[in-house]
């Protein structure tokens, strides 16, 4: 599948298949794009994200059943980070609900779980009949993320939206576009969802203002430095949200699918960071050995461009403690490191 920005890429980007989407992985260099976002501003095509509208008087009620976080009682104009659990309490996906009105919601979830969630949303909405409509955004709409210390100023300069008075995780919307102060990089910035023509226009203006076009490679190194889990890579349905440390995104005062399965069970493993002492690239599947005798595997990792050290994420046994010494098997060598708290780098 191709996004509304595909024609722009031509020979400017190295492309990869990402869950069925032809996406740029980098334009010039992952490291250069990473630092552009940390120091100035970069723009990502994130149109591959699944975007589902829930519209009708039962929309809040259904989302409260599907999501661990409180949706119906949240304020209009808020973005709400949430998990979607299966009946066994496993994380089917994580995502962000955009509350456009009391009866109109946009749920942004990951590309890798599209088929599963499409079926799940349909099954769960059917009993509510005509009380709501659930539909995906058409393919001629797109989504971009402009991220970095200069991102909001750049977006304002395009003339589309001024988010300077908007708080983090809030949105403004006007006719066919939505702009929110959000992202997946740890930097301040915005995400814009709109018709393809608007997205292409804003993207071109951002580039002319000096915003760096960025690919999914930098998106991954940026989210890894922040310790954010990536669905289908770090998280699958065998993982429960408490293992991810996600208590603050769960409202136990309401009913939701998977609630009984996760209630009263202390997690036996926790999603944590590992950092090695040297400039190695850590990768998913690498084995980690704790000084206190446990073994685990990383689910993802990289070389942190900022720290110049290998960093990784994974579910470690509950006895693993921040600061504990570890060794990581890196291509036949044992490399020394520690269990690290995340984010690996401190922002603002």
């Amino acid at each position, binding site marked *: 599948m191709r996004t509304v920005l595909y024609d722009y890429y031509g020979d400017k980007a*190295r492309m990869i298949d990402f869950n069925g989407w032809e996406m740029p992985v980098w334009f010039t260099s992952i*490291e250069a794009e990473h630092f552009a976002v940390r120091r100035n501003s970069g723009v990502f095509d994130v149109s591959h994200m699944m975007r589902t509208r829930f519209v009708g008087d039962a929309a809040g009620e259904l989302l409260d059943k599907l999501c661990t976080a409180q949706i119906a009682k949240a304020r209009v104009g808020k973005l709400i980070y949430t998990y979607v659990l299966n009946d066994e309490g496993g994380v089917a996906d994580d995502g962000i609900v955009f509350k456009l009105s009391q009866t109109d919601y946009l749920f942004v979830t990951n590309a890798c779980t599209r088929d599963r969630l499409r079926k799940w949303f349909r099954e769960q909405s059917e009993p509510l009949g005509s009380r709501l409509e659930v539909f995906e955004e058409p393919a001629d709409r797109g989504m971009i993320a402009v991220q970095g210390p200069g991102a909001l100023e750049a977006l304002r300069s395009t003339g589309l939206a001024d988010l300077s008075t908007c708080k983090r995780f809030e949105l403004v919307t006007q006719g066919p576009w939505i702009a929110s102060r959000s992202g997946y990089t740890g930097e301040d910035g915005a995400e814009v969802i709109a018709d393809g023509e608007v997205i292409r226009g804003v993207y071109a203006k951002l580039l002319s203002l000096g915003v760096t076009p960025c690919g999914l*490679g930098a998106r*991954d190194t940026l989210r890894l430095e922040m310790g954010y889990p990536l669905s289908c890579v770090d998280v699958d349905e065998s993982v429960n949200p408490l293992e991810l440390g996600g208590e603050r995104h769960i409202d136990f005062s309401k009913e939701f699918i998977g609630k009984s399965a996760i209630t009263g069970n202390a997690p036996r493993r926790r999603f944590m960071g590992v950092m090695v002492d040297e400039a*190695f*690239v850590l990768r998913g599947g690498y084995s980690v050995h704790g000084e206190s005798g446990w073994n685990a595997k990383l689910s993802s990792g*990289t070389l942190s461009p900022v720290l110049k050290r290998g960093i990784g994420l994974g579910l470690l046994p509950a006895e693993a403690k921040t600061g504990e010494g570890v060794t990581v098997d890196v291509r036949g060598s044992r490399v020394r490191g520690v269990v690290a708290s995340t984010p690996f780098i401190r922002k603002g």
Partner: protein
Amino acid sequence: MSKVPAELWYTREHEWLRIEPSGVCVVGITDYAQSKLGDIVVIDLPKPGDRVEQMKSAAVIESFKAVSEIYSPVTGTVVEVNSSLKEDPGLVNRDPYGAGWIFKAKPDSIDRDRGQLLDAPDYQNFVGGQG
């Protein structure tokens, strides 16, 4: 379009080989290879004195996305490695045929090894075919 200098020899695994007048051979990876790999962030070099065999792994390079072997274009003995790559592996991206060279080896028999290598036009055709 990636650069393919005319005076070098090439492997189908995208290493290049320069034969110096002394008979020592310099090895690196091609412009095409570095552009496919993206930022090279880690290099494990061989040591002077190590034996290398033609088309067997002699070094390892890592980009953000992948771990790749570097295959020796010749059978012989390593005589020097580019130790500046330890501090700055990105030299391979910036100057793959110059400052980004990887190691030098003294081949046992360059005449025998050369039969397995591609000249510049053949390598150009080879990567052209790989799109």
